[in-house]
């Protein structure tokens, strides 16, 4: 009977693993601190902890209508500009877009009472006003990512006159589709007790939820793979950048988190109706601007069906969907996404600018 694995081979592999880790530590010692966000940018507007950045165009004549990127409150927006060769922003700039990005900052105890109304009708609205004023325009293009996409949908529904074109990327819309594990976990959570107790939602708790979706891969196997690349400083730095982003989790303003969990995850109001933000009803039927919906087919955080549902509910007559064959993270940073997603977005926007 043939053994599945020879004992000598196991010992050899174990020693090899040991060697990789110990030598890798020497490389790790020498890589220094990790930098992110390499594309030149300028802070053009600040409000409380929010900073609005304008990226320096890389073409002589960028698009007349600027593109404002609205990232999620969860994790940091530098994922869109992680490094020179993995940057959605740099690619959009190279394809002629004039790009702005909202950095929501790190909320602390003083921000605990911020509501969705503040994020959407105040912070986001003020950024839109600022960009429009700077370009002497009434409308701009919005690119909302993940939760930022949900915010962008709400904003477009509430302020349709301000949005020329809307792009949503890996955006949850229907929170009650099958296989939405995060949504299942949130259903029975006593979010009132949680927020009344902790105030702001700790980033660590959110991270625990995300890692718990695939615990064996995300907290185990990933580091076994790391051992294989530790002697390569370039690959190691790339890994460390991603690792830095994953564990760079801002706390969530308590009231906004309470509303987001209740209204969206528990009650699914964005598609079932009854969603009010700042005392005004939010209806996806009010989203009449052209919509490009980009989703990832292997997304474990935002199931594709949750994003695809947008088509049924949105009011626009100009709706395009793009299915990217990859996961929630890969859509920002994979080599394939760099080649395919930003050009597709830029092309779609430019077709509607003519």
């Amino acid at each position, binding site marked *: 009977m*043939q053994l*599945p*694995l020879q*004992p000598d081979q196991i*010992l050899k*592999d*174990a020693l090899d*693993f*040991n*060697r990789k*880790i110990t030598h890798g*530590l020497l490389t*790790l*010692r020498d*890589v220094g*601190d*990790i930098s992110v966000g390499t594309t030149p940018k300028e802070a053009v507007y600040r409000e409380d902890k929010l900073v609005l950045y304008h990226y320096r165009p890389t073409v002589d*004549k960028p*698009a*007349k209508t600027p593109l404002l990127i609205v990232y999620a409150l969860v994790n940091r927006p530098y994922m869109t500009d992680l490094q020179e060769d993995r940057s959605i922003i740099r690619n959009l700039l190279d394809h*002629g*877009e004039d790009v702005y990005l909202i950095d929501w900052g790190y909320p602390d105890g*003083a921000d*605990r*009472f911020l509501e969705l109304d*503040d994020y959407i009708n*105040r912070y986001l609205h003020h950024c839109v006003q600022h960009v429009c004023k700077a370009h*002497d325009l*009434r409308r701009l293009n919005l690119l909302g990512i993940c939760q930022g996409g949900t915010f962008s949908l709400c904003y477009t529904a509430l302020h349709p006159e301000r949005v020329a074109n809307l792009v949503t990327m890996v955006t949850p819309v229907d929170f009650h589709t099958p296989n939405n*594990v995060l949504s299942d*976990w949130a259903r*029975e*959570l006593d979010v009132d*007790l949680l927020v009344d*107790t*902790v105030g702001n939602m700790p980033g*660590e*708790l959110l991270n*625990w939820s995300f890692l718990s979706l695939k*615990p*064996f*891969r995300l*907290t*185990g*196997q990933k*580091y076994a793979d*790391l051992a294989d690349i530790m002697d390569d400083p370039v690959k190691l730095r790339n890994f*460390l950048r991603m690792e*830095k982003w994953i564990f760079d989790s801002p706390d969530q303003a308590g009231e906004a988190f309470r509303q987001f969990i209740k209204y969206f995850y528990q009650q699914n109001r964005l598609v079932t109706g009854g969603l009010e933000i700042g005392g005004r009803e939010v209806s996806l039927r009010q989203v009449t601007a052209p919509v490009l919906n980009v989703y990832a087919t292997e997304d474990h955080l935002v199931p594709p069906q949750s994003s695809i549902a947008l088509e049924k509910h949105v009011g626009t*007559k*100009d709706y395009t969907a793009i*299915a990217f*064959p990859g996961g929630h993270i890969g859509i920002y940073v994979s080599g394939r996404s760099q*080649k*395919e997603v930003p*050009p*597709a977005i*830029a092309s779609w*926007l430019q077709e509607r600018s*003519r």
Partner: protein
Amino acid sequence: MSGIEDTTEAWTKVWMDAQKQYLDTWMKLSGGSRDWPGAPAPFGWGGASPWGDPLQQWSSLMTQALPRDSQGISTRLFDLGKSYLSLGETFWHLMQQGKGFTGSATDWQETLKNSLAAAGGLGLTGQDHVDPWSGMATFWGLPLNNWQRFACSFSPFPGEMEKALRPESVTQPSEMTRAVRQMLSLPPVGYTREWQEQAQEWTQLYLDYARTLQEYAQLLGKVGQRTTELFSGKLGGQLKKGRSLEGLRDAYNLWIDCGEEAYAEAVATPDFSHLQAQMVNALMRLKRHEQEMVHEVMTALNMPTRQEMDTSHKRVYELQRRLNALQDTVENLASSMELAEESRATRETPHASPVKRKTPARKKAAAQKPGQPKPRVKSKTRKG
């Protein structure tokens, strides 16, 4: 197959010799010395895991020398290393015993399954697999291990306190738990009775949290058992087809695949969502009560409290909202006045040219660099 213990000594000797050679070489290469304060001896370690203990000490020394950004990752890497090598050790034992096996592939699969079950699953060598906490340093303990790290960082009480309550079973509370619950039923008396009530309630909430945590751990324990079943089945399937594993990493990757599959089956059940939510809710109830107790103490000491801070923050926030609303009103009024002024000026000077309002320039297609690839992603457009 008998006696995983029989091969322990052999494994330790082989591993120690290899480690000794490797460490000697590494020390020479890195220019270090084994004589630093508190340094582990590179061989001759005792304990259940000849690899894990020195690795842990080694990692704690190395981690301090690393840049800040890399310290967290080295900790996670060493955690993985311990699990990985633990798997290697267990697998080595199994293969050593299998050397003389003469049965069929089916027999081997069954033997492997039984051996793994006896060991409590890969990485659980010699531990009691009935205890759901016994695998906390191993693969299927990961979700719970992550939670424990979070919960400990979130509570003023040490993790050791929770460990003391682990013997509690959901159906059969331990002697300690029974004693604590009996104590809780005593009526508070005397001058400090209110504080006694608070302490009793806190203890009750702590026991409730410990119970939900135990239930969650037991559910994850089933993931471990299921992982072992899947692993034995898939490995056996490969053997029947005449395939073997290429190395330890192959075995590890297969184990991870099985773990994720078993975990996915578990999390898809309503029980899992329910238990997880109950665990978080129980921790929050406990934490809330702790806050109330701390608030009372701080108030008695005339110190500022979280409650007061929240009140202040809320007032500042509400003032800011009112200010924003006023600012919007003022801006709207200013715009209205400007329009009215323009209108009046036009009426009073009918021959004057109207005020020019800027209009957006004609839209042009943005410049695109030559040679850029066209998108290949699959898309669908609806146009009305």
